[in-house]
């Protein structure tokens, strides 16, 4: 039975660099996948591309490739990543430049695009899922619209000998599924296998979140050596058998429970996990420890994929202003509350136009509102005021009113900070699959 090993080199765009190097050096892997494209990142990258056609790919692309490309080339490891963001071709060109500079010899790089459907959406009556309004009605504020593309174009690029694949918006699990389909020749409508391969992707797509990252609860769920957390490896066999593990000697741990937390992460109905490739069913999944840090995954099935692709829609949503200030020592809570009352009144008196305002006491109710019973009075609180405005000018005034607490507010406030920013928010829509045509460009170094 043939088996391949797939490593996960990043769980988000800003993730640690060296765990991927460790995987490439010591993980005995065949593929290294980097998931670096959050929903909103692509909308922001779109703006970067508009300002400079050679930009719009992930800001850490060069640093990550410089770190892993020489080792991957030496060990015959293929790399798949969505670090192409809004501009996969420019990302691929950057990788070629790095390969040439490091004198790595021959390298075939595939850039996969075609996910950008913003122009089509601007004139489309496709409904925005959250609001029910037709997409065309928000044409003037739309910044980006990217369809979640599936594994197919990546499988094609691998079949054509790509060593590195740089994509724009593709579904995260699809990047892990593609090498399984390619290596094992699975039919793309063998739904059970595609379901299993998708479970592999879902378990690995957040990097360290399945190897003990985002898991530790001191005294109850202890995890050793999180500063040297090892990123995950999936061992997959031709028949769909799966083992989740990590590099021996690295930090963290892979247990039944770390896998349980991750398989349900960002899942709604576990029977119906929708991707562009399949409707995966995790409802009967089981995890079994077969050796320390080796978890066998069974019980995943799949059903036919849907006819539509999810589209992530970025739009300009006004401005957000914020100010913060700390109070400490005896009476901190009362002074913090007084500060909030003063700012609330000041925003009224000075006529700041905000469609939504929020007043928090960090350390008291900023995170869990009033869900938890009141605790003993804290020795430090931090006042936080935020608001949503139509213009930058209005948004700036919110932080200013917090800052003026220095000389006009309660005693002994300190550490004021303020900020204001434009908000690019995201909505979603379902777009007919046949209207999204993936494009593959090849570059050779």
């Amino acid at each position, binding site marked *: 039975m043939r088996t391949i090993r797939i490593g996960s080199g990043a769980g988000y765009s800003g993730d640690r660099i060296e765990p991927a190097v460790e995987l490439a050096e010591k993980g005995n892997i065949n593929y290294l996948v980097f998931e670096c494209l959050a929903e909103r990142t692509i909308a922001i990258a779109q703006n970067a591309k508009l300002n400079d056609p050679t930009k719009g790919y992930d800001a850490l692309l060069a640093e990550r490739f410089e770190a892993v490309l020489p080792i991957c080339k030496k060990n015959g490891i293929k790399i798949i990543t969505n670090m192409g963001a809004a501009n996969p071709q420019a990302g691929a060109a950057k990788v070629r430049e790095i390969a040439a500079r490091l004198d790595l010899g021959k390298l075939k790089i595939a850039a996969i695009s075609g996910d950008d459907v913003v122009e089509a959406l601007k004139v489309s009556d496709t409904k925005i899922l*959250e609001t029910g309004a037709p997409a065309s009605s928000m044409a003037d504020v739309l910044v980006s619209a990217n369809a979640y593309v599936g594994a197919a174009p990546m499988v094609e690029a691998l079949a054509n000998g790509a060593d590195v694949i740089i994509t724009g918006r593709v579904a995260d699990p699809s990047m892990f599924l593609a090498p399984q389909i390619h290596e094992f020749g699975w039919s793309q409508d063998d739904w059970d296998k595609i379901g299993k391969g998708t479970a592999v992707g879902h378990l690995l797509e957040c990097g360290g979140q399945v190897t003990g990252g985002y898991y530790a609860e001191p005294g109850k769920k202890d995890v050793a050596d999180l500063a040297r957390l090892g990123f995950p490896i999936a061992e997959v066999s031709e028949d769909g058998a799966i083992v989740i593990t990590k590099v021996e000697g690295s930090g963290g741990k892979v247990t039944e429970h770390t896998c349980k937390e991750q398989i349900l992460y960002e899942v*709604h109905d576990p029977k119906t996990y929708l991707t562009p490739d399949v409707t995966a069913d995790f409802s009967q999944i089981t995890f079994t420890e077969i050796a320390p840090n080796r978890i066998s995954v069974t019980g995943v099935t799949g059903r036919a994929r849907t006819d539509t692709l999810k589209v992530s829609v970025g739009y300009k949503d006004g401005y957000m202003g914020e100010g913060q200030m700390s109070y400490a020592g005896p009476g901190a809570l009362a002074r913090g509350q007084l500060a909030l009352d003063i700012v609330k009144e000041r925003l009224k008196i000075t006529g700041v136009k905000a469609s939504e305002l*929020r007043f928090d006491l960090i350390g008291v109710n*900023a995170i*869990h509102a009033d869900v*938890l019973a009141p605790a003993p009075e804290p020795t430090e609180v931090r006042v936080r005021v935020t608001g949503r405005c139509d213009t930058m000018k209005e948004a700036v005034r919110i932080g200013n009113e917090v800052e003026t607490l220095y000389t006009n507010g309660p005693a002994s406030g300190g550490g004021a900070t303020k900020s204001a920013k434009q908000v*690019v928010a995201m909505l979603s829509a379902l777009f007919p699959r046949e209207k999204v045509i993936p494009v593959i460009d090849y570059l050779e170094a």
Partner: protein
Amino acid sequence: MKLFDIAHSRTGDKGNISNISVIVYDQKDYERVREYVTPERVRAHFKGIVNGEVVRYEIPTLGALNFVMQDALGGGVTRSLALDAHGKCLASALLAMDIPAKN
């Protein structure tokens, strides 16, 4: 006792929807958690944060429940004014729920 004593949890976000898993450490506690931690109790627990419907999915093979909470993230993770816009800390709030000790 608190749910924290017998279960662990992770929050995920999609738009304005938050999902929270509740996973028992020991399978023998699953039935008790399944009986007590109902969608109605979870919705009441998150009063003031969750404004929409709460649906519960059961995954007995994992000893897990998955709560999907609508209108839970201040209008959506990319536009929320909240300090924790993703609602990532909500898992810890759910684990603070009191649960009757075993008979």
